[in-house]
């Protein structure tokens, strides 16, 4: 059973690495959006460091959203989604494998690049561990929650706008605790409460999202 999990991750990672635009575009989007802020609000270090947690978190959230549309779309159009649904392995496990592979190429690069953007936004260095940790937990949750929306909209021609409308409200708790965590760390406060809440949201999404996305996929191929 775990074989099918690792097989699917291997397959999706191989595909992503061969088609670099898939993971590179959201990453470049993330970098550009954050760099627009010093240009837009001016090089005032004080102001930048104050808005840095929110800016980085919102940019990461939008970049995740941008990548989400491709989670099941290719599989839907080339028919491999049907084959996935007809596989003897448990569908939630396969959906979880797809979401994990998707996070590895879309969420993890954001986390790795975020310290660089934190420097650009003059975020105090002491907030870096909180930024990294909150982004790891946060982007994982966003990918899981987003997989439900991606599964629901995969059968629609112009599904990406609807996907945004569906999942953005669900992203709000993650954003609040994520940016709150970084802001608290930047001001030198304790962050364990926000991190615990983020971890709680992650485990909640992990427990529910693969099942909900599986049900949504079965509905989407019926059309």
């Amino acid at each position, binding site marked *: 059973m775990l*074989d*099918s999990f690792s*097989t*699917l991750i*291997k*397959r999706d990672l*191989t*595909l992503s690495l*061969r*088609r670099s635009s898939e993971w590179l575009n959201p990453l470049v989007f993330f970098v550009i959006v954050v760099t627009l802020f010093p240009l837009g609000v001016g090089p005032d270090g004080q102001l930048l460091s104050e808005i840095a947690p929110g800016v980085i978190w919102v940019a990461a959230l939008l970049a995740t959203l941008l990548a989400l549309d491709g989670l099941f779309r*290719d599989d839907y*159009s*080339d*028919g*491999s989604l*049907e*084959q*996935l*649904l*007809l*596989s*003897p*392995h448990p569908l939630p496990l*396969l959906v979880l494998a797809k979401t994990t592979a998707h996070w590895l190429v879309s969420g993890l690069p954001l986390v790795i690049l975020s310290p660089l953007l934190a420097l650009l936004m003059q975020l105090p260095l002491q907030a870096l561990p909180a930024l990294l940790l909150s982004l790891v937990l946060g982007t994982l949750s966003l990918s899981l929650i987003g997989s439900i929306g991606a599964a629901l909209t995969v059968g629609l021609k112009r599904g990406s706008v609807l996907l945004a409308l569906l999942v953005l409200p669900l992203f709000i708790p993650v954003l609040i605790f994520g940016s709150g965590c970084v802001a608290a760390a930047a001001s030198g406060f304790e962050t364990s409460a926000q991190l615990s809440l983020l971890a709680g949201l992650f485990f909640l999404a992990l427990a529910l999202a693969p099942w909900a996305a599986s049900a949504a996929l079965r509905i989407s*191929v*019926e059309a």
Partner: protein
Amino acid sequence: MPDKSLESDSDRRAENHSEGRAETLLEAKSLSVSRGELQLFADRSFTITKGELVQLHGDNGSGKTTLLRALCTLMPLDEGELYWRGEQLPAARDSYFSEMAFAGHADGLKTGLTPVENLKWCLIDTPPDEDACYQTLAQTGLAGKEDLPCRVLSAGQRRRVVLARLLISKAVLWILDEPLTALDVSGRELVASLIEAHIEQGGSVIYSTHQPLPLSSRSADQTLMLPG
């Protein structure tokens, strides 16, 4: 499981035994399926037994694809029941899916992967080893093309990869929607010979086609007509 289905199952087995017939694999009881407002078929009942070749006849838009997708549980039924080896679907989905292979209009291949990668990562019960993938691809006429990305293969060559996936799946029941699409003469003969070999080994096939399938040693055991 409700008593009723157990009873009917044992009845059927007794009946099969007395007539010396093979065991029933898939049983459809009064299926009705519609697409939107349009009712495609109503109250169709049939069974597919082991070693049986079933052809699906019907004009364009008569619901062949829909019926085949409904048999795969990819389409919801308006009414009726499906049984796999006497157990009702979709509850018995797991055992059904490990013994059934579906080849639909879409190839279900990843164009960024090579034929070998498509086969070895195809999520069947027991993942095939690489040698078996190469052998099966050679069997379907793709020797020498195993390591090219599927993107550069022609539509017909991709269908041959799909045939290789059917072979490697070791499924008992093949559900084939227009298996001859995009194939050349030798490809059509290959499909026919693979189907015949599968039937001889005790497998079952249900297929739809508009072109005659060049079967050499047998004809379809059962033909289902769908009204236009």
